[in-house]
């Protein structure tokens, strides 16, 4: 049983957990699944007397979202420390080949440590992947009004076409970056 738990979970298990989360959040307190708004609440919390209208709202009403993401962090800690898979992460061969050519050497973990580490933060490449990438994720999700959870999962589940537009644009952006810009960024 434990072997099954520490092995990488198949996609459909994750799908069930996602579907269950959509339900349980609605059932527990009418909460629509969404994660990126937590960063807006953090800003609003830290700036109680701000003049920026985007952060002037009753964030205390949304505090559940902060509890939820702290839970995600704790879940990451539990799975990362006590449920580790002894095997290496299996990466599709075609993807590995392309990344190897671009200079990625570490395929052992969930993230390539040659890009994502404190040491690489000081390099141009590390700065782009860790800092610039993060900025785009934060800026883009708030501009779009949601991320993968709010638009792709919750929005599509409730058949909202603006979320379909957003999801298509997420994919377009990701494909442009992966195929045309990332090969260059990786060589920096």
């Amino acid at each position, binding site marked *: 049983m434990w072997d099954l738990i520490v092995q990488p979970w198949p*996609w459909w298990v994750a799908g069930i957990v996602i*579907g269950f989360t959509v339900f349980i959040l609605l059932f527990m307190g009418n*909460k629509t699944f969404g994660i990126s708004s937590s*960063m807006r609440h953090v800003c609003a919390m830290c700036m109680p007397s701000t003049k920026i209208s985007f952060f002037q709202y009753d964030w205390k009403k949304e*505090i559940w979202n902060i509890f939820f993401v702290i839970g995600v962090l704790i879940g990451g800690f539990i799975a*990362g420390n006590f449920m580790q898979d002894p095997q290496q992460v299996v990466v599709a061969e075609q993807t590995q080949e392309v990344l190897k050519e671009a200079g990625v050497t570490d395929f052992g973990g969930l*993230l390539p440590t040659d890009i994502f580490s404190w040491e690489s933060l000081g390099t141009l490449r590390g700065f782009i992947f860790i800092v610039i990438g993060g900025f785009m994720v934060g800026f883009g999700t708030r501009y*779009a009004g949601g991320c993968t959870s709010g638009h*792709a999962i919750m929005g599509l589940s409730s058949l909202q076409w603006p979320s379909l537009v957003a999801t298509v644009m997420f994919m377009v952006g990701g494909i442009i970056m992966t195929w045309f810009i*990332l090969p260059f960024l990786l060589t920096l």
Partner: protein
Amino acid sequence: MSEKQETNTNTENHPPLLSNVKYLIVGVVFGIAFVKAEIISWFRIQEMFRFDSFHMYGVIGSGVFLGAIVVQLIKRFNIKTMSGEEIVIPDKKFHKGQIFGGLIFGLGWAITGACPGPLFAQIGAGFGVIFITFLSATLGVLTYGYLKDKLPH
């Protein structure tokens, strides 16, 4: 005596802080699934955008499929919240942000290999440097809030 105190601490009709612990527990389960299904893996996101693996499409596709069933069941059978409230899913209004913002997020997603949710799970799983990514993402949110009125919507 305790009744009076309760109404005093519970100003503006906010539910007591501890009532939110249930959302934390849901988050824990979700975070474990994030790590164990390797959704937080930079490589899985690369595979997805390179169309080299079905994994992420399976995750998101089955999540949307089940989520849609959940929403339909709630509507058909008029399922209420556990405290008896009507379940309301607010409409998303279309604006140009979904196009421009969506594109910017997509570009960033392929770089970081993480949307906002996985960022939290990555930090928890021991990738401490991702805290910097989170701070930078929050700075991005702050910048958006600051520029909001000047951006096309």
